């Protein structure tokens, strides 16, 4: 199964699940990354990390280690 950290810039995906074993899972959910939502990887600045996702009409930066718990 792929995770959001593997998306390419401009690629969209639907969240299938959140991996609860990641300690950041709760905050990830709270900011709106819930199963069924569409996300798009929009930005990957200079150092390639964190990643800028569009979710629920807003932009959220998430470290790729944390984006790993967003399964698509």
């Amino acid at each position, binding site marked *: 199964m792929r995770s959001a950290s593997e998306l390419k810039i401009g690629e969209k995906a639907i969240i299938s699940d959140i991996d609860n074993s990641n300690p*950041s899972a709760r905050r990830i*959910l*709270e900011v*709106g990354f*819930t199963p069924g939502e569409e996300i798009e990887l929009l930005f990957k600045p200079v150092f390639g990390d*964190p990643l800028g996702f569009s979710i629920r*009409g807003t*932009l959220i*930066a*998430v470290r790729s280690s944390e984006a790993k718990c967003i399964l698509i």
Partner: protein
Amino acid sequence: MLTETDNKIPLITLLGHPNSGKTTLFNYLSGKKYKTVNYPGSTVEYSISRVLSRFEFNANILDSPGIISLIPCSPDEKLSVNYVYNHPKHGKTDLAVVTLDASQLSRQLLLVKQLIECNFKVIIALTMLDILNKKGLDISAEKLSELTGCDVVKIDGRDGDGIDELLKIIKENINKINENNVKHSLKNYDSAKIIQLYSDIEKIEKEVLFSIEPLTGENELIHIENVNKKLTVLNNYKNNGHRKIDKNTISIDRFVLHKFWGLIIFIAVMSLTFTSIFWLAAPLMDLVDTFFGNLSEIASNVLGNNLLSDLVSNGLIAGLGSVLVFVPQIVILFLILGLLEDSGYLARGAMLLDKPLAKIGLNGRSFVPMLSGFACAIPAIMATRTIQNRRERFLTIFIIPLMSCSARLPVYALLLAFLIPQDKPFIAGLALTAIYIFSILSSLIIAGVVNKFTKRIKSINDNSSFIIELPTYKKPKIDTVLKNTFKNANQYVKKAGPVILVLSLILWFLTTFPQQNQEDLSVNKISSTELVLNATSPFALINSDTIKNQNSGEENSDSESETEYDLSKSYAGMIGKIIEPVMIPLGLDWRVGVSLIVTFSAREVFVSSMALIFKVTEDEDEGKFQEGILNSMREAKNEATGQQLFTTATIAGLIVFFVFAMQCLSTVAISKKETGGWKIPILQVVVFTGLAYVMAFITVHGLKLIGIS
């Protein structure tokens, strides 16, 4: 639990996401007459006010910092959330008014849901309806009220539309408050619960949002014809407008978060920030400086030639001046930080730097505190509370004193003026930049090394995290930024002021006593009255007339050696002699030692103490203060070796010393408070000062080895 606060007047707490229009609403309700208070011992602040009397009901209204969830993630959030449950001063929240950005409905409803689950009485104030309309959507307040069970009011922050209705509803609810002890707690709050809350929210969202025709010019007519269309329920709502991000923000971010341009923009923004701190502040600092110079002159003229006059003009006014001379820099730095934050850039800066900072054990969130460290370490250390991870937070606190704070600036300015010919200000500017870059690099290397050594202590619970919302770009609200800037400047004066003032008085005492005979005192006075003061400005362009007037009429016959002899008999001199052995390896003598000792309470005192100690006697034809102090520095001989005291090597050594040394009592105090123990502040003092000494030694002798004395 019944406390005395239960008999209080009702408390309305305003809650909501950051940037959801909370403060605008607060201003309406309080009539802008409120006080802003910090939660005890923190930078988290809240504003409290009585609801305006013309609204005809009695209640306190509290504006707390923006939160996205009732489950806190950082020390900052924890405080804010705890005080929603029970405020130490105003008791528990009777009525929660939540501002809800209608264009961000699904994410922001989570907080509403949590508050309802927690048994709070909630009123929803819908904001940002214009943005929602721009997305081609509208929202039904009635439906939202029906589905959430809360009263819902649409308000418009720009013209105050809807505020009256909101007040009517608040009033009704206030009257219904019963004193029953409601238990506020979130039960079984786990991932499944959040997912469930969100699925409820989505159902709500689907029912309350309606699509309207896009309001482009051409379609205006069609729009009017098809008013009924407004009521078309949003069917395929997930693919619709409300899930789109603001177009301007995306286009700006295509550059700001671009792999290459993002870095260029970041460097440009930072360079601009720092150049304006130095160059915009310079004329203002001269102004403050001249003002206090004149004040000191007036005081000494009025009070005559006695000890009291000396105390007032040299001790008191000079001390005050040395505090206030930094205010322009602090104001400019906070102004720029405020503008950057309000426009939305700081969050991007933090994102850009997260990866490199994470490599050395810091966090993207360390960026803003580190940046503030260039003004003053005290607010900077307090600003680390936004960092969730304890280890990252402590490491950030650890290295903040290495950021070149504004108190070092006058020191560098004086020392560089000694090294670099006055007619080449450009080179001095470059050298200053080099010092700044050197200090940043050193701090990063030190963070990296400390991180390596402490990695093993890392516990599993120490989850390092970086999840932040990148807000929509907005024109900064100038009045809010100005207000914050003023507040920060005020805080600086209040916090740093007394310390520096007391220190200047102590320094005055130590250099003036034990009392010598009257003649000596008058000599002492000539040299120090103006100088102590002027020494506080790095760009001191001192009014030569003042000094000349003072000097004329008094005998200038005393030679430099005689005045130095006087000083060595003072308390300051005695202390200096004790630490002389430490200074000799650096090629310096006891006189610099005294100056360095006083800097441990506040760095900027270095310049004034150098002026006092080296007894700058003004040359008639040279008006500038700095010339005077530089000349006496050039003439000074090392009392131990008889060689010239200040050389390129020893001055470079001093600069390096100042880059590293932890010479600030207030920083030690705040570091102890914020880390909850003495371990980190003591480490900072020992490690940084030790490092400063070693690095200065290496610099002095390294330069001598390659032939630069």
